[in-house]
């Protein structure tokens, strides 16, 4: 009897402590991620911000003058080479986002709807479409670099059809088309799998009810599938936008930034400035600006596309 009372009392105490004060358990739960976040995101971010205030060469600690905001102001000085390079690469990046995000999302929805049907070999095709995603960017880009050569398979196929060949990797806009095709082939499996998972969560009863009401498959897609997918699509679009903004490996390998630097993306530019030229401070300033722009873009995306679920 007394022990039961004591137990009840101690339970009450614990509950009171939990209500009133500090409970370490939740923090322990997030600790592993927090550690990784701190080590691999927070610390590099703040160190990058610090770096951007110096003329910074990590191999020459003896020569590392503080330059204040010079690295930033130079990016907004139209006469400066850094500004010309940075904003040209920014335009290239935006171009790629515009041409690559729609196919990466639309084809992924299309593929996911197809793969969600019941048919023989369904799992095999799910694997086939996801398989390229497991390749490294180097492997994927080299494959397509090779296919898009002047005498490559793509041109040989086109010529066999009597269509003539293109200079895929060294003319505009063909270079963007080639890079986009390579990227879609390589990464679409990821988007497809996410959307497929969301499709499987849509209750079958909605489709059954619509079918009873005589809705055509197209109407069911527009009025059930797409609205139900909306939250996941916001996520997929966000991820795809960010991934496209980080484009680097494909132009690095397929076009070397050409023709005439037109596929030199902003990450490519940061790499050139920081690693190739040893101007880490200037490169860090570029990174900070890009990070800011991407944060705003992500927030806008969630604000406008993520909204209607509460309506």
């Amino acid at each position, binding site marked *: 009897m007394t022990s039961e009372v004591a137990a009840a009392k101690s339970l009450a105490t614990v509950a009171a402590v939990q209500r009133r004060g500090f409970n370490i358990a939740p923090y322990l739960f997030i600790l592993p991620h927090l550690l990784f976040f701190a080590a691999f995101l927070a610390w590099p971010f703040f160190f990058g911000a610090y770096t951007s205030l110096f003329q910074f060469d990590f191999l020459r600690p003896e020569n590392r003058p503080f330059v204040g905001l010079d690295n930033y102001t130079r990016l907004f000085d139209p006469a400066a080479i850094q500004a010309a390079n940075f904003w040209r690469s920014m335009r290239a990046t935006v171009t790629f986002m515009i041409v690559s995000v729609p196919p990466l999302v639309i084809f992924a929805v299309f593929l996911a709807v197809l793969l969600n049907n019941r048919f023989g070999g369904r799992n095999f095709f799910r694997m086939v479409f996801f398989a390229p995603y497991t390749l490294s960017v180097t492997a994927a880009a080299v494959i397509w670099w090779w296919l898009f050569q002047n005498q490559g398979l793509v041109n040989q196929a086109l010529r066999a059809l009597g269509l003539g060949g293109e200079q895929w990797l060294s003319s505009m806009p063909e270079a963007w088309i080639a890079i986009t095709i390579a990227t879609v082939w390589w990464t679409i499996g990821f988007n497809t799998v996410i959307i497929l998972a969301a499709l499987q969560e849509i209750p079958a009863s909605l489709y059954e009810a619509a079918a009873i009401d005589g809705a055509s498959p197209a109407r069911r897609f527009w009025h059930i599938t797409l609205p139900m997918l909306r939250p996941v699509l916001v996520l997929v679009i966000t991820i795809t936008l*960010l991934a496209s903004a980080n484009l680097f490996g494909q132009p690095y390998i397929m076009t070397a930034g050409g023709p005439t630097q037109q596929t030199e993306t902003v990450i490519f530019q940061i790499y050139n400035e920081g690693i190739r030229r040893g101007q880490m401070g200037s490169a860090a300033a570029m990174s900070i600006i890009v990070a800011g722009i991407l944060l705003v873009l992500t927030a806008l995306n969630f604000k406008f596309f993520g909204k209607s679920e509460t309506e």
Partner: protein
Amino acid sequence: MKKTYGGAWAMLAVAALVLSACGPGGATTRPSGPATSPTGTAGTPTGPAATATAGPGATATTGPGATATMGPGGSPSAVTCPDSARDQTIEMWSPLTGPDGDEMSALAQRFSAENEWGITVSHVPTPDYLVALTTAAASPDQLPEATIVRVINVAELAVRNIIKPWTDEALGIVGDPSQLAQLPWERGEYNGERYSVPFDISALVMYYNKDMFAAANVAEPGTEPWTRQEFEDALTALDDSGVQAISVGTLFNSATLFQSFIVQFGGSVVSEDGTTATFNSAEGVEALTYIKNLRDAHGTGASGTGDPEVQPFTAEQAAIVIHGPWHISNLAQNDFVGFAPIPQVGEQFAVWGGSHQLALHSEDPAIQAAAGCWTSWFLQNSLDWAAAGQIPAYTPARENPELATRAPGIAAIAPSAGEGVVVLPQVPGLEGALWPQGFEPAVDRILLGEETDIQAALDTQAAASQQVIDQNAQQFGSGASPAP
């Protein structure tokens, strides 16, 4: 619905991790050649067994080149080393990732097996070697003992503390510098210190199709560069015979042609001290006009990365291609391929070039001495390296009659390149300022027809280039080494 949304956030976190690991912006390496070397130190005999000198390969080099006065003994097996070099191990990186890398590995293995001091040299071909060196230098004990560097990178590597000067003792083991090609030797010096010793000279080669030349009644060129008249007559005759006379591409191909022709016409891409971009001169306009006409009149206009301009030549569709010497080993397998110096279209001969040089990361006297022994042996065995597609920096090997049989392609270009090679002054970051930030985009914009005003295109890029040169001077100090 709310629930799905929360799930989405969780997935975003996971996805962000996945993407950061392998998204489109993930880490890359260049798709060039083998990434690692098969050479290891295992199985390399050290101790008494290694003193059995002269393996089968060594006897091949006892021509005049090998008997010259680098080592007191005058034969390859007679390199003399101080005792301090005994049993040292040298890991040596290089940007040689093609077939020439395999050849370098074989030479390093042979030296390790043959030398009497138990010195071991293992060669590691390293793609994107500058980035690899830079990142290795950022952490302790990651750098190898030595690296074969491109001569144009010496100043930058030196100013960033990645390579260390050679000691006089080690240089004494290498031998007499007057036996080495003069310009590459001079370019291995920066700020009064000796940072690298030249192994070879690379220069552009004019590859031609013997069968097409015969069919068009064009006499094959010799080791003397063609005159402008001979070159243009040949192009016309080849065109008339119904083949594509010459294949001219963009990027490296057009940039090296530009850098060669501008000097041939009497100009230069940069001032002697490397502080002023001068490629927008009248000679620059003349050179670019000439290349543009070559490409428009004769080419099908290959362009892009990966040397696509060589492909029509390999496929026997184009009669001539002017390119780097690293294509020699592949192209030499075709009987139809001939080798010649590039034509002289201006009033003097000049050809774009580079040089592979041995630089050291270690200041340890024992390592330095061992590196001296290796270099001495390598220079005396330069004919083997010539066979891999490089012109020996070692003059006795360059002038050795055996060169013609051992490396016909190299023998054809060695005499002209020995004198006319153009290597940029030794200034940190100069190649970056002049190429990607300088004339390369202008040359390509003109060749691809994106711009037509050659003077304006060069002016724009010269201004950009000058900014980068000035920024580099401010960052690295304006310590341009005294250019010869």
